[in-house]
């Protein structure tokens, strides 16, 4: 088997299997509109949340397909390939995630079910009676989600280019464009039901591929012990740009804190993303969520195994493909190339389809979540106050198209690196909504002015820190990664940890700044007796469950 880098080096077997599976799920996407259909899809409860009636299995596939994206599946091993043990943070991240969100997710489901909330900003609007705070949360959600959608395209494109569709210029993006057009159309028609149905295929394929890869490849390449030893050697080679070793198979004294804060910060942030919440809100009841919090770590196990493929690629001497459109070596292609070189082509085709379809499911859910935010918290709040549920659904459908083509435009006209930067920033930004969304589920102690002040602080500081991080590998002066040396940490010019080379995740630092400012401003505002908005929610709302007698009917006109 040859690497498909030469012009005309199309991998026909792989491509045929890929196209076959792609067409199959596309048909599913269109048919999904009729799946467990309500009388009408013209309501956000139906189009945007699939009727709020998904059971345990559907939710497991949907949320699993939503959180563990194609980009994760190519980027995590790529990080391990480049840096070693640090890239394994994805495992602790997705293990501590569920115990952390178990209780708040239940409260969020109940209050949203009772009050008809569709987005996290809806909740903030109801909890604090503040359209401004809700707008900030909605904008944060949209800004954080857009590059995430674009990154699904990066994952999809990594696969397409490995199969030989590595053209230059705009024409090189054509296969991607077609795939996304199909996706946009069935999402428009079927709403959340489409990714929910397709997720079954996607996750099934992913499980088969990863399990085969993890057992077959090491036996072919001399066993895990040999893989780790040869990877340790490869990572110990000095990086030509910095003169330091590239990485190591265990953490160093400098990146342990980075590992911890990255895992914790990412875990706190994940369910603040609007698309994660969409999966939770679409479930039928609290019991479904609880069972899923137990069952979803199955995906974490998979992600951990997948991360190890970064070492397999190192050991197999894989070289990443140069993206013909940008001219840079794309480290995200290491896993596709590994599959391409090590698997028979028919199985590589299945593996690529798994990653490709794996990009479509989260992209659909994310665009629906962003569309819901736009519709509920910007369109209905500021542009058309009296919008009926049917008008909302219509608006959201159109917004989902705009969001998707916005993401495509990102990839077509702007260096994909920009999306990667933005996604990195997005994680830091979305974490800044934690006090307004997650803490507000428990207490209204924070004053809405304090929350706004904290949000502004966290945003500004977080972005400033990321901006100042250089990346010697790519010779870029800004947005070079998410590792901030503590010695560079500056509070108005004061360096509390001057000289330290220990690294930390900037999002975590920004969140601490956010909370400190929110507390101080809250205390001031409370002492000045500034009005803190009205709370629409009641204590009982946070405990409502599916069989309650007086529960708000689904699809009700508010």
């Amino acid at each position, binding site marked *: 088997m040859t690497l498909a880098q030469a012009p005309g080096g199309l991998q026909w077997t792989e491509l045929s299997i890929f196209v076959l599976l792609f067409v199959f799920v596309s048909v599913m996407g269109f048919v999904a509109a009729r799946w467990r259909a309500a009388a009408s899809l013209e309501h956000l409860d139906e189009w945007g949340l699939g009727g709020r009636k998904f059971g345990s299995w559907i939710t497991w596939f949907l949320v699993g397909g939503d959180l563990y994206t194609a980009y994760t599946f190519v980027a995590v091993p790529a990080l391990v390939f480049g840096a070693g043990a640090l890239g394994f943070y994805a495992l602790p991240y997705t293990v*501590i995630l569920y*115990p952390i969100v178990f209780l708040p997710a239940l409260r969020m489901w109940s209050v949203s079910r009772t009050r008809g909330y569709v987005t996290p900003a809806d909740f903030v609007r109801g909890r604090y009676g503040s359209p401004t705070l809700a707008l900030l949360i909605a904008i944060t959600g949209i800004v954080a989600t857009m590059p995430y959608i674009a990154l699904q395209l990066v994952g999809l494109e990594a696969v397409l280019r490995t199969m030989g569709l590595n053209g230059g210029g705009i024409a090189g993006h054509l296969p991607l464009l077609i795939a996304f057009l199909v996706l946009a159309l069935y999402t428009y028609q079927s709403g959340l039901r489409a990714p929910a149905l397709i997720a079954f295929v996607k996750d099934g394929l992913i499980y088969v591929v990863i399990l085969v890869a993890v057992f077959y490849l090491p036996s072919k390449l001399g066993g895990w012990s040999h893989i780790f030893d040869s990877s340790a050697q490869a990572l110990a080679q000095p990086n030509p740009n910095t003169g330091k070793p590239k990485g190591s198979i265990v953490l160093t004294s400098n990146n342990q804190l980075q590992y911890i804060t990255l895992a914790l910060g990412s875990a706190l942030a994940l369910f603040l993303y609007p698309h994660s919440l969409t999966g939770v809100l679409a479930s039928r009841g609290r019991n479904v969520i*609880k069972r899923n919090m137990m069952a979803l770590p199955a995906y974490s196990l998979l992600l951990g195994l997948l991360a190890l493929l970064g070492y397999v690629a190192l050991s197999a001497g894989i070289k990443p493909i140069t993206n013909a459109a940008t001219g840079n070596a794309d480290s995200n292609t290491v896993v596709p190339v590994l599959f391409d070189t090590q698997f028979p082509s028919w199985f590589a085709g299945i593996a690529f389809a798994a990653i490709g379809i794996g990009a479509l499911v989260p992209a659909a859910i994310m665009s629906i979540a962003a569309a819901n935010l736009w519709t509920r918290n910007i369109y209905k709040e500021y542009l058309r106050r009296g919008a009926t549920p049917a008008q909302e659904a219509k608006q959201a459908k159109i917004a989902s198209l705009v969001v998707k083509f916005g993401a495509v435009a990102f990839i077509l006209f702007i260096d994909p690196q920009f999306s990667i930067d933005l996604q990195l920033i997005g994680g830091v930004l979305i974490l800044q909504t934690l006090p307004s969304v997650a803490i507000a589920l428990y207490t209204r102690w924070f004053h809405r002015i304090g929350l706004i002040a904290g949000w502004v602080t966290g945003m500004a500081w977080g972005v400033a820190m990321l901006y100042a991080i250089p990346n010697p590998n790519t010779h870029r002066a800004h947005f070079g990664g998410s590792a901030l040396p503590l010695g560079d940490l500056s509070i108005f010019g004061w360096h509390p940890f001057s000289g330290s080379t220990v690294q930390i995740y900037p999002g975590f630092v920004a969140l601490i700044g956010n909370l400190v400012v929110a507390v101080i401003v809250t205390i001031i505002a409370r002492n000045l007796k500034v009005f803190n908005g009205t709370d629409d929610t009641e204590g009982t709302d946070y405990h409502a469950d599916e069989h309650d007698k007086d529960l708000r009917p689904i699809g009700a006109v508010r």
Partner: protein
Amino acid sequence: MSGKAAGKVSGLQVSPWNLVLLIPLLMLVTPWFNFDKPRVLGLPFFYWYQFLFVIVGVASVAIVYVTTKGKPTVTGKPDRLAVQELDEGENR
């Protein structure tokens, strides 16, 4: 903001079992497992130790799920799973 209907849960529900959810956070104590040896099936300690924590995480959530579900606050209804009725005790 207190409850309106009788028999409904309103305030925060604190169960000591919820503290079990903190156990998986021990996974963040990297000095405890940042070693290469001993290896199992060729995997360095750093990796297989963290894989074991997937089980710890699942077990912790399962313990909280099971210990906090069996307390219905509404009685005299048809025989359904208690947890589907109301779920006192699982909210902090």
